[in-house]
């Protein structure tokens, strides 16, 4: 990724050197040949072909013909959004901030691991958690990319919070400290969606393990004792003190998504909960908490991780699984 970034920066400099008068303030590399284009990528959540609606029942969810599931949660962080050209160059999408370029509750502006968005696909009418509309609803990623004259063959992005920010203080105002000097480390105060999800019961921070919940997908299962089948994706096998930025996880558990033939003018991105759950009998808890909270001994995680193409003990990475992420055509 760094190599790609340098290559883009190099092109930009060459163009400037030739008298190009790029007025873009973006860091994304927009120039006269390939000016920045404003882009908004919509996301939606479905169970199969049916739109995710909080509290609605969906039959046939899970393995062996499936069971009735009730939509309960559909949130995920994404970062490092980038376009892939026909000649295999990656062009980053620079996520927007507010009018002043500051982070919003939904997006931390920037590109690569700096550009982080929190998608909250729980529909507006019923917030899944109460009768009120969901004030945090967010179904799109917005920004710019220098792709005006590029031939784009795919979109790539990473799910979750990047390692650099995964162990910062989600409560919002404690920077990580340098152990040697005791000085705060720049950029480690939670902002935007990283701060919002740590406040109160935001639900996207995993306090016990001092990291964020990369994705939170939940369905209620009326016929099961446990009530809810959780999919909480987070980094595991971590060690080191978070407050000194020393925490490192052996398993990042951040799915890499690549969607071919993606055209930002024609397509949005679908997250299919039915596909994610298709390898699990959602009425059965095979160990640990109901569903999968990423624990390495939780057998419920095998099917989930296979479908997210994440390594997991005993997971079959060669299987042909239904796609959790796919493109859909805009109306």
């Amino acid at each position: 990724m760094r190599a790609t970034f340098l290559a883009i920066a190099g092109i930009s400099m060459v163009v400037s050197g030739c008298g190009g008068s790029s007025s873009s303030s973006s860091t994304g590399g927009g120039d006269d040949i390939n000016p920045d284009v404003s882009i908004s990528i919509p996301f939606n959540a479905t169970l199969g072909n049916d739109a995710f609606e909080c509290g609605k029942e969906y039959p046939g969810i899970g393995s062996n013909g499936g069971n009735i599931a009730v939509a309960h949660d559909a949130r995920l962080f994404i970062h490092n959004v980038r376009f892939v050209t026909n000649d295999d160059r990656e062009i980053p999408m620079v996520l927007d901030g507010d009018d002043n370029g500051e982070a919003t509750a939904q997006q931390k502006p920037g590109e690569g691991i700096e550009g982080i968005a929190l998608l909250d696909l729980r529909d507006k009418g019923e917030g899944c958690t109460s009768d009120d509309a969901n004030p945090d609803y967010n179904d799109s990623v917005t920004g710019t990319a220098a792709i005006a004259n590029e031939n784009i063959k795919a979109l790539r992005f990473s799910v979750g919070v990047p390692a650099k920010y995964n162990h910062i203080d989600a409560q919002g105002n404690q920077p990580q400290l340098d152990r040697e000097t005791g000085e705060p480390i720049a950029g480690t105060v939670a902002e935007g969606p990283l701060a919002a999800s740590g406040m109160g019961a935001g639900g996207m921070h995993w306090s016990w393990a001092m990291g964020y919940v990369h994705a939170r997908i939940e369905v209620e299962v009326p016929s099961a004792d446990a009530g809810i089948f959780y999919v909480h994706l987070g980094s595991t096998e971590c060690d080191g003190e978070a407050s000194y930025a020393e925490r490192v996880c052996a398993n990042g558990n951040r799915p890499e998504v690549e969607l071919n033939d993606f055209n930002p003018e024609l397509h949005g991105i679908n997250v299919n909960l039915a596909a994610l759950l298709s390898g699990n009998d959602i009425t059965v808890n095979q160990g640990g908490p109901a569903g999968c909270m990423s624990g390495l001994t939780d057998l419920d995680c095998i099917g989930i991780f296979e479908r997210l193409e994440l390594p997991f003990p005993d997971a079959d990475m060669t299987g042909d699984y239904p796609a959790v992420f796919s493109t859909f055509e805009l109306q």
Partner: protein
Amino acid sequence: MNRLFLALVLPASLLLSGCPDSSTGIDDQGASVSDFDWHMPDWVPLPVEPDYNPITEAKFQLGRYLFYDTDLSSDGSMSCESCHQQDKAFTDGVARPTGVTGMIHPRNSQSIANAAWVRTLTWGNPTLTDIEQQIVIPLFGIDPVEMGVNEANQDLVLSRLQRKTEYQTLFAEAFPDQSDPMYDEQAWQNIIHALASFVRGMTSFGSNYDLYTAGQSDALSTSAKRGMNLFNSEKLECFHCHEGYTLTASVRDRRRTPNIPAPFFNTGLYNIDGISAYPEPNTGKHELTGKTSDMGLFRPQSLRNIALTAPYNHDGSTATLREVILNYAAGGRNITSGPNTGDGRMNINKDPFIVSFTITEQEIEDVVAFLESLTDYEFINNPRYANPWQPPKDQDLTP
């Protein structure tokens, strides 16, 4: 280890005694960020407190009201006190407590006396180093659910607090720089900071053992003195993990930040299927790190007030102090039936200090007498830590 540590600290102490203004007699590096009265003897070094939440009496008092307020749970049925009761040195007397939705916590409630001094909070989690981080878990956690606050009910819970007249003043005094500390978006953070301040301010250094070490020779019975010598002997080896003024090796204070990893040890309680496994989900440090070498490693507990905090061990699986001592005497616990069958004595991760020893009934009684001398009756009867919503008890429980 302990001796070396003292040797390092003493010169600093001597230097400071030349300062007429020094009130603590120890090198706190001038880091006392507030004039908070810790209500503890001068010889105890000041604890670490985070820059972002310096302790004040006002935050401590607000935290005290919150700690004892059942309105802080989703259904109004539980407060922090439900699992942390003063007469039991802020534990609850059960093996494993139950949360508001009926979920049973996998682990035993811990005493929170002197929580400000431990390297890491909770039984086996090496990650939690600040009380502020820990308090989020019982409030908002879902695995297990404890207080049951979540996205759906957090505004309701907050509104119940906002309706109480006591809090109008308490919040304003605790957070004087904020215009609306109970109503704006920082409200939950303020609640957490206040609760952390109350917990951090709970100090317990007033046991008979402390009187004894301060020079009052008759503060310990002859049995307790014999037990103390056994405790500190190379036969029992207790002192390696339960050392110093906190009686745990998991300690930090304002004089220094240890640069060795926070201590966690396997004491040979389990060895399921002979592969050194501990019953899920209580695999200790391993739960977070995933390392086989961390299986069954738990933080050494402070033994202060230990006689009040039965049952024992991370899962409450040992009923009495006598049984704890017998487990150590056997060099671990051999479980011969049931799902946890296995010989913990053979656990591959068992700490080398868990050696077997022979011990007589009299010696067990002596060690128990010593452990009982660590009880701080002043602490468990101190109105400063008691429920502010109730009138003070008129009876004195001190024996």
